[in-house]
């Protein structure tokens, strides 16, 4: 009885994916393997039974991943995947750990009963500096009160310091956006990229399909996001014919959806002047809806997208420079937007973060 219930419960496992920069292909393989097993993808640590670390995070990203690991309620399992071929076996290993009652009991006994071992607020940032430290010392349970500030409409609002990333669903790998929130409006943000490495690779087309899948998932259109993921997997398999077929139908559905246009129209609009100011490539012009269609075109092999994963070519250097420019421009682009809009704008720009030093507030 207990054992069959365990087996049933195993089928309902949710997987939280932590991705190091450069491990996009690994994450794609992990997502595919997880969904293939009937496991869903977790959106937060509280939901997850398995933490899959894609690629090799370096020190600070590793610390963040460790903090997220502390937030998994248990029964829990943690596996690392360095190459796409290892995704399915790694999940099989994780299933073994979850099914091992004795091991789970030892793990539970070794942890305290209290909240996340770090003694921090359990948000998904995996970072310690919640709350505004400038406030005087009223801090029940170590969480300081928020400071106040004038908001967008000139009303006094609480300011919350909330880091977005580095472990967050549908979020660029290794990116941390430290936001000062007025309610749910991003007043200002600073950006940082935590270092890590992955096998790289993956064609520009598959990367674009992956970006489109993330954007559609954030827009709350699960079926379209699933189609984009299928196209991405076909591209990674080298099955261009099937990918083209899926993308054709998806492009038609997306372009036809008035509800989607209503949601994305006018968000994060970049005209020529804005592109020049931030040094962004022309393909990122227009609003979020335009960029979504551009991503789908790029996935279908549109020549506007260049810079295949060949590190020696000039095009690849251009692509890396463009990614760096996008990351540097993010604080300016999300300031004044609410969280939902900010997430959509970041996903539509779909940067591949390149580790560098912190840049100033936008």
């Amino acid at each position, binding site marked *: 009885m207990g054992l069959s219930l365990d087996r049933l419960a195993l089928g309902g496992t949710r997987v939280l994916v932590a991705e190091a920069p450069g491990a996009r292909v690994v994450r794609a393989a992990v997502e595919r393997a997880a969904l293939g097993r009937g496991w869903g993808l977790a959106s937060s640590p509280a939901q997850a039974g398995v933490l899959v670390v894609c690629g090799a995070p370096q020190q600070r990203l590793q610390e963040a991943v460790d903090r997220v690991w502390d937030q998994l309620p248990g029964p829990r399992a943690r596996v690392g995947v360095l190459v796409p071929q290892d995704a399915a076996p790694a999940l099989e290993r994780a299933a073994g750990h979850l099914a091992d009652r004795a091991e789970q009991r030892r793990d539970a006994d070794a942890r305290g009963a209290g909240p996340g071992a770090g003694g921090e607020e359990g948000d998904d940032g995996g970072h310690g500096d919640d709350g505004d430290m400038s406030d005087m010392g009223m801090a*029940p349970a170590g969480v300081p*009160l*928020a400071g*106040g500030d004038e908001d967008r409409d000139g*009303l006094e609002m*609480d300011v919350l310091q909330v880091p977005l990333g580095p472990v967050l669903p549908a979020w660029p790998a290794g990116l941390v956006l430290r936001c000062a929130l007025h309610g749910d409006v991003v007043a200002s943000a600073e950006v940082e990229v935590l270092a890590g490495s992955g096998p790289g690779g993956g064609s520009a087309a598959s990367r674009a399909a992956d970006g489109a899948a993330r954007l559609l998932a954030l827009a709350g259109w699960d079926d379209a996001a699933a189609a984009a993921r299928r196209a991405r997997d076909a591209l990674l398999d080298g099955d261009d014919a099937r990918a083209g077929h899926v993308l054709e139908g998806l492009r038609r559905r997306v372009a036809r959806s008035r509800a989607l246009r*209503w949601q994305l129209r006018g968000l994060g609009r970049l005209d020529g002047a804005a592109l020049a100011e931030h040094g962004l490539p022309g393909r990122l012009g227009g609003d979020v809806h335009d960029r979504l269609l551009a991503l789908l075109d790029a996935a279908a092999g549109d020549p506007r997208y260049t810079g295949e994963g060949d590190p020696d070519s000039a095009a690849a250097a251009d692509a890396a420079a463009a990614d760096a420019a996008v990351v540097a421009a993010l604080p300016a682009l999300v300031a*004044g937007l609410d969280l939902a809009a900010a997430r959509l704008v970041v996903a539509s720009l779909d940067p591949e973060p390149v580790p560098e030093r912190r840049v100033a507030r936008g």
Partner: protein
Amino acid sequence: MSVPTDLGAAVGVAFWGLAVVAVAAGVAVFRVDSMARATYALAVSFVAVGAALLLVGLDYVGLVVVLMMVMEMAVMGVYMVMLMGMNPALMPMSMVHSGRRAAVLAAGTFVVLAAGALLVPWPERRGAPAPDTVAALGTALMESTMLVMLVVSPVMVATIVAGVALAVPRGRYDRLGDDLRRRPADDPQPGGVGR
């Protein structure tokens, strides 16, 4: 009455139980440690009052008390939190001030009201409740007091709109320019119908 009479004893117990809940939740409003708890303790108190009204056969009034009060408390909670800056969910705090004066006033008021309730010679009941209290209430609202309703509603709506307009620094001239001709409007975040 919407309850069968053979349930008389159970209804009595339920009524007094709800009365105790209403008073206890009312007390809790001033004893708890967070704005959210205070707000929703008040909501619980009102829900108990609404349920008690259901028990005495005032279906419509009881349900509207629950409906309106839960909605109001949900919105009021937002304002309470916003104005009091209560981020950690459980922040030690006090909902009362000027304790001694308030205690004297409260005790005095209670004595006056209780004395009135006990000493006034209440008249015998002459009428009988309407067979359909919902319809009776509707008739009263839509016939004899209709004029009052027609006057009060627009005044209340105008008050709300005016209050918001005064509170928000941005006005239509900020949105639409000095000649009110700018299209689309200049909003920090555009709305849903492209005004």
